[in-house]
């Protein structure tokens, strides 16, 4: 990124001065100078375009892991006021609606699992459907899909996938309101028929990790984490259904924008006023997809428990937290001293409520929401806690991952899947995948340094580091 176009607010926050005649809201970029300098100029172009959309409140923002996306940059955050003509954008939510991470803490230590790690990795790989062409064991009729879309993880628990205690530690208690399955096409529902309880492909994973370092003992204790403990993280979303909704509504919203005279700086920013019929229709479908993703991760958590129970009997896997990073949520935020109801788009950004937020489960209320930054398969991930500072400056948002530093095409030129898997095995990280191409594209070197992202997230005041998780076994799509 051309740093000469930015103005420094502090070491971890930058703005973009307007050029004469430019009509837009402010832009704020969070991150260290090296992280921002390494980003593609497209990130700046895209977030500046977002700042031109109607009804934006405050600034359009990027998180420290931002990279080039579709219309909205990945790592983009923008809040809109429906009373001021604010819009809803399918590109601002992303195609994989409600993609997110479920983190489960176990009662095991690294010493406990080391002898069985190979068996555990194999059993997870053969039990959790992952990758292109793979379908789940569960098949649903369209009417059942509607129940999933209305019920989310709550529905899954009622079907016997998981336990009611899980719901306490999932955003929205496992089910968002406002889902309208009738707004989801038959194609989308049919596409999902064999995809419930599947991980997907690309950057999605199921990882067995060890807590290698604790940054904040008090918060770690509240989160139930200690050094040497084994945790499991599941990264996936609403699968084909979410993508079908995103694809179909992109065209619907593009046509609505044209009909309503909204000038789009980029076609992919297709949007409609929140209060328009098209906007409301998309919101109903999006909420249905959020419930689909929550149900999917709940089923995957259940399958993971079954595998652990088979390989290492009497293991407990409790939900630490389940947080999405591709959403638009209706939230109350204080702006210029007034509380306003805003539609907060987080495209590749994690909600990060600070201490005492009423939406948090009682257990975490004094500490803040668990925030999960998922890293690449060879490096590691972070658990952080939301801060009050972030509520004030970034609508309670933080980074969601390491963020790509290199395109998939470039990664294929640098690495070979088999060689990479062998090298990681020598370092004690077992990779299980059906796709050598996928492994190469997901090489750790193709991602930004997750340590720098987590550090910048903390120093920018977006969330504070609690624990570092090192991968031990990873099932990739």
């Amino acid at each position, binding site marked *: 990124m051309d740093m000469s176009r930015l103005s420094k607010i502090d070491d971890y926050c930058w703005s973009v001065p307007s050029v004469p005649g430019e009509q837009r809201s402010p832009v704020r970029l969070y991150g260290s100078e090296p992280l921002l300098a390494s980003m*593609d100029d*497209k990130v700046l172009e895209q977030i500046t375009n977002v700042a031109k959309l109607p009804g934006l409140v405050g600034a359009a923002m990027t998180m420290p892991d931002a*990279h*080039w*996306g*579709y*219309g909205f940059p*990945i790592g983009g955050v923008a809040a809109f006021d429906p009373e001021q003509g604010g819009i809803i954008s399918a590109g601002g939510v992303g*195609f*994989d609606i409600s993609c997110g991470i479920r983190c489960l803490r176990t009662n095991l230590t690294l010493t406990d699992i080391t002898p069985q790690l190979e068996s555990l990795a194999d059993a997870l790989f053969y039990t959790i459907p992952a*990758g*292109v*062409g793979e*379908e789940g064991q569960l098949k649903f009729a369209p009417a059942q899909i509607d129940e999933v879309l209305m019920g989310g993880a709550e529905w899954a628990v009622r079907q016997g996938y998981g336990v009611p205690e899980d719901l306490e530690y999932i955003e929205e208690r496992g089910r968002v309101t406002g889902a309208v399955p009738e707004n989801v096409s038959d*194609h989308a529902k*049919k*596409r999902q*028929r*064999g*995809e419930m309880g599947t991980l*997907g*492909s*690309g950057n999605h994973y199921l990882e067995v990790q060890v807590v290698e370092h604790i940054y904040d003992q008090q918060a770690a204790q509240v989160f139930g984490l200690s050094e040497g403990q084994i945790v499991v993280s599941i990264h996936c979303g609403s699968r*084909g259904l979410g*993508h*079908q909704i*995103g*694809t179909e509504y*992109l*065209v619907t919203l*593009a046509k609505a924008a044209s009909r309503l005279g909204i000038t789009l700086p980029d*076609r*992919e920013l*297709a949007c409609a006023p929140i209060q328009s019929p098209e906007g409301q229709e998309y919101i109903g479908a999006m909420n249905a997809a959020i419930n689909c993703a929550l149900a999917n991760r709940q089923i995957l958590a259940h399958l993971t428990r079954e595998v652990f129970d088979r390989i290492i009997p009497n293991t407990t896997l409790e939900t630490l937290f389940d947080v999405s990073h591709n959403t638009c949520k209706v939230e109350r935020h204080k702006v210029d001293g007034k509380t306003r109801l805003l539609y907060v788009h987080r495209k590749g950004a994690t909600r990060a409520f600070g201490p005492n937020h009423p939406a948090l489960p009682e257990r975490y209320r004094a500490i803040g929401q668990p925030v999960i930054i998922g890293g690449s398969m060879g490096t590691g991930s972070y658990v952080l806690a939301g801060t009050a500072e972030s509520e004030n400056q970034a609508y309670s948002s933080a980074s969601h991952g390491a963020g*790509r530093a290199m*395109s*998939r*095409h*470039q990664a294929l030129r640098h690495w070979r899947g088999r060689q990479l898997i062998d090298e990681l095995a020598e370092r004690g990280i077992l990779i299980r995948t*059906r*796709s050598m*191409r*996928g492994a190469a*594209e997901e090489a750790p070197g193709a991602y930004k340094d997750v340590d720098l992202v987590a550090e910048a997230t903390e120093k920018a005041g977006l969330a504070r580091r609690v624990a570092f998780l090192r991968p031990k076994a990873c099932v990739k*799509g």
Partner: protein
Amino acid sequence: MRSSYSYFDHDADIGIIGCGETAEAAFVAAAEAMFAIMTDITTVSDVIRIQVGFEESDLELALVTWLNNLLTEARMEGLIFSRFALQRNETNWRGEARGEPWRAEMERGVEVKGATLTMLSVKQVEAGWEARCVVDV
């Protein structure tokens, strides 16, 4: 101009390029590019044929609609396609795809979830037509 496909860089996903003598031929090549991300399409037989049809006056939106219709059909039925044909009568598009159900021994690439409007363009070039967009994986 011989039909061919290639790729271009995008930070998170993959850009595809289809080229051909006509816009329709370029769209067919773009479809080959997209399915070749998922497997080695030279090993896919053509025992199943499906048809797609849609109305679209915008040439660029037609590319995205064509690709997304193919993906939807493939995912709904658990199929992988390798051969394509497409015809246009003004705004009316009629196409077909041939392929087979996924087999366990097929080479696994990366799942393409959808074609996007990012870097979307359909244009006439010196020797024919070029169609490109980024696909989400």
